[in-house]
């Protein structure tokens, strides 16, 4: 049962206020008629399904009714960041891998990458 930071309300709220809406950043082709059937099928149905970092579209359904994006780990269910429509993720599988590499190179103590902003205190 997740605790989700709504980037529009600026607060952590209970998962019950939200609905998951699938993969984020899927753009509708600008010229649908120019798409092949395969391209259109890809837009409609084919999805990233990663075991790890995933960028997802959610709606704060019982709240501000705004759609927004979540970067979430699909195994640990950790929410690494949430961001508004039109924004790009600050954390991706690639940035995390690079960070890990840098960290192991520096052999420094591991630091948390979680950036779910806001204070979880009630």
């Amino acid at each position: 049962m997740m605790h989700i930071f709504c980037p529009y309300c600026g607060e952590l709220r209970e998962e019950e206020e939200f609905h998951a809406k699938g993969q984020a950043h899927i753009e509708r082709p600008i010229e649908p008629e120019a798409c092949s059937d395969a391209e259109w099928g890809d837009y409609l149905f084919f999805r990233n399904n990663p075991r790890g970092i995933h960028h997802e579209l959610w709606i704060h359904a019982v709240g501000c009714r705004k759609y927004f994006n979540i970067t979430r780990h699909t195994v640990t269910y950790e929410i690494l960041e949430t961001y508004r429509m039109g924004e790009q993720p600050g954390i991706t599988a690639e940035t995390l891998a690079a960070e890990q590499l840098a960290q192991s190179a520096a052999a420094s103590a591991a630091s948390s990458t979680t950036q779910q902003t806001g204070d979880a205190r009630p």
Partner: protein
Amino acid sequence: MQRYSGFGLVKHALSHHEHWQKVWRSPEPKKEYDVIIVGGGGHGLATAYYLAKEHGITNIAVIEKGWLGGGNTARNTTIVRSNYLWDESAALYEHSMKLWEGLSQDLNYNVMFSQRGVLNLGHTLQDMRDIQRRVNANRLQGIDGEVLDTQQVQDLVPAMDCSASTRYPVLGASWQPRGGVARHDAVAWGFARGADSLGVDLIQQTEVTGFRKQDGAIVGVETSRGFIGAKRVGVVTAGNSGVMAEKAGFRLPLESHPLQALVSEPLKPILDTVVMSNHVHGYVSQSDKGDLVIGAGIDGYVGYGQRGSYPTIEHTVQAIIELFPIFSRVRMNRQWGGIVDTCPDACPIISKTPVKGLFFNCGWGTGGFKATPGSGNIFAWTLAKGRAHPLAEPFAYDRFNSGKLIDEHGAAGVAH
């Protein structure tokens, strides 16, 4: 293979059970196989079994990253039925049902297939239209089924509240007498034992980390124990199918979601059939041990955590108490989750892929367990012949480009 029987059991008892053979070997992987099955769940093991038994291909390895039958096979609510709406899916599940009906004897392993009947309840006028439509189709497909009225449902399930005073009264149901439940672990173990005895190598604790291709064709798999060559590879990894496809270099129209289930503490027999309700959204049967086995809903997000959200459990338990208020004082013992790979049309993908010689069998969503023998059987055929089994043809993944979906969402609803 050591045959099992009541007589054998008595014999072993007299020697303190010290002489039972291993149910399967733990072989070292060979350098190359004719066929490699990735995934040692029920479907993968069944595929290997039928490949060996029906197609004479025995140079086969099943590669499992964990333990056999440890994924959704071990986590489902064990319901078996074949009363699907569309011809394509009904034929697929009925093929499976027929195999279930002789499976214990075929495998010499009691999978405890209990044909106690499956009820799909209707609570609204539209539910009843859909039930009529599906049962009418089933009869013409050659699948048993009838539409029951409220009183007939009450007679079958005395413990259920079929009164008119509930929030969503039971208006009737579809009834498939041949449906029922089976012992999930036994299915995996029975197929594993059968496959092993036909020479199939079951390789556990070995992870497939990649697919090696040459000129667009598969030549083997990379594993945590090194490269293993193969002429053909069948991937049957359920919730991990998306991950496997990514490793093979393509995407599938799949998302892996958490699906939860729960059991009560064991009770004396109180429920003799399987009761499913799409509308109030719960389904329940009672295991031979006495637990009420209850299926919960699917969560809306991608999740590989084998757990879902608590409100999903709450809604399911509410549904069960709406149907069976007398269970209010019964306790929930345990909940768990599986990872189900779901397709947009709630139907599986049994298909060749962009990589020659590489086949996928996935997307069973919430309906995989009941399909185990049938899925394995037609996937074995597909792997043996290098082309889709006639029953598998409609389930190619390119249907999502042509638009030829087999949309079971509408009528199957809770497609378990």
